[in-house]
């Protein structure tokens, strides 16, 4: 598997870092704009319409505003940690991003333990949230951070359980291998039933993991002002915001890679003509198309579903999602052991 990582030299590395930073800023801006538009139309509104054509420049105006805004730090805050927390959140997002295969050639770091790496590193993000909440010296922030911590740690279990199902079928932790294993068809339907259930579990649990509504307990506006980032303003707030939207992108990218075949075109083992037709569409288009679809679904969730209470959140994870995840994993283990899934002989 040719990858960029093997040929990295110092200037190239700096370039890569700058590229990644540029990429995440652009993606976050587009996502914020998309979210506002999508939310508006779900609620019979129009969303931003004034800045640029149909408000397309709204995100740029908003980022400029955040850059120029005064950065207010509470007097009794822990200044070092307060400054450090948003950086940790963004760092975690960037580190996760580099392991994701965007197309057959665009893989910044093809880690052999890709899935493990992604779930481990994205877990660092919660450290940023916890530190931010703690260092603000504000009870809303602290409560929000504690909730975020409890929530992310709980739902991490379900995410991992659903990822394990795919790892069983694909037989590898390397993300590029997982993508290649889906040449004959995406795991969501090739693994009968369990693939779909794992995908649903993954979608629910990772929506909770990135603290998005209906699981936005960490920043419940009605009860905790703004949760862990109550005391953040200006650029530091922008960093948390950036991390939030990058995590949305990462979750969608992981979902697409593991369940929807990543940059693989839609192949159905056997139908050669159909497969060749699908091959004409470049891999990056496939990848981003899948990611955008998933992001849209997650936004759709956000603007439709009622919000959960903290106890409901916990019982959903520990009483519903986790038992289902274990059951699913057990069934999936049998299925993959006996090869009871579609097109097992293709790879």
């Amino acid at each position, binding site marked *: 598997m040719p990858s960029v990582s093997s040929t990295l030299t110092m200037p190239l590395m700096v370039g890569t870092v700058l590229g990644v930073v540029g990429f995440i800023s652009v993606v976050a801006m587009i996502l914020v704009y998309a979210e506002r538009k*999508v939310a*508006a*139309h*779900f*609620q*019979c*509104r*129009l969303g931003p*319409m004034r800045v640029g054509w149909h408000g397309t420049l709204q995100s740029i105006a908003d980022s400029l505003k955040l850059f120029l805004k005064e950065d207010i730090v509470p007097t009794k805050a822990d200044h070092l940690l307060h400054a450090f927390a948003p950086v940790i959140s963004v760092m975690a997002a960037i580190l996760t991003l580099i392991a994701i295969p965007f197309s057959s050639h665009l893989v910044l770091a093809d880690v052999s333990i890709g899935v493990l790496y992604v779930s481990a590193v994205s877990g660092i993000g919660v450290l940023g949230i916890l530190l931010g909440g703690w260092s603000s010296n504000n009870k809303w922030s602290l409560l929000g951070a504690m909730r975020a911590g409890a929530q992310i740690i709980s739902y991490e279990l379900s995410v991992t359980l659903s990822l394990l199902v795919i790892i069983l079928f694909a037989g590898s932790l390397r993300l590029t291998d997982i993508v290649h294993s889906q040449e004959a068809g995406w795991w969501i339907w090739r693994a009968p039933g369990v693939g779909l259930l794992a995908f649903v579990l993954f979608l629910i649990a990772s929506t909770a993991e990135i603290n998005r509504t209906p699981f936005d307990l960490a920043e419940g506006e009605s009860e905790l002002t703004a949760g862990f980032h109550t005391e953040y303003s200006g650029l530091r707030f922008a960093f948390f915001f950036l991390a939030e939207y990058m995590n949305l992108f990462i979750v969608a990218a992981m979902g697409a890679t593991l369940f929807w075949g990543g940059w693989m075109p839609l192949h159905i083992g056997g139908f050669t003509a159909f497969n060749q037709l699908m091959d004409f569409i470049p891999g990056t288009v496939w990848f981003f198309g899948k990611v955008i679809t998933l992001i849209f679904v997650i936004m*759709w*969730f956000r*603007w*439709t*579903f009622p919000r959960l209470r903290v106890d409901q959140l916990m019982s959903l994870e520990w009483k*519903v999602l986790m038992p*289902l995840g274990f059951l699913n994993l057990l069934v999936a283990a049998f299925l993959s052991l006996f090869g009871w899934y579609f097109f097992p002989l293709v790879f």
Partner: protein
Amino acid sequence: MDDDRLTAKNNYVKPVQALPIRGFFGRIAYGLGSLLKGMRVTMHYFIHPSTVVTQQYPENRETLVLSPRIRSQLSLIHDESGYHKCTACHICEQACPNASIHVVDRPEPAISKKELDFFIWRLDSCTFCNLCVMVCPFQCLEMKPTFESSVYDQRLLAYNLTKYAGPTSTVLAKQTDDEARKNMIEPRQVYDGPTELGGFILAGMPESTREKKS
């Protein structure tokens, strides 16, 4: 979308049904089903731009669609000949929770009763509760949809709603002689009248153009 629920008469409030107990998986399926139903509703809105209610206001000023129930400005209804039915009974004045209405009457020499002189309505303190419209025994008040009432001087928000001082349209209709009818009424302008915002003069603002009635 569950359309029959929206259109069915007298059926807005449905009795709360206890969640049927269907066991662990049954309840998960039930919950997922109801979530999907919600997603169907929001998707309906998403793919039907005609459901958007936002008005691009200053641009579509000409074609603006307002709710028929909009309450933006109180007005005293004047008929085609420019006469109103207000008898200066002060009921609206008393019903107003904010004392935004000030009905000024004057003696009507012909029938030794009172007639309306000024109908002062203060937009700045009105909450548009519609009580005055509802209590008027002669239905002379209505809410108009004209909402562009911003001015640079707060005093200009105290309007005189009547176009003339004089008796009601019923009394005027009985008067057959045009000249005599003209003599019974006296024209009034929108900023005429005695209410001067409690005597405040706002700094930096031009003096109100309203002429005071002596």
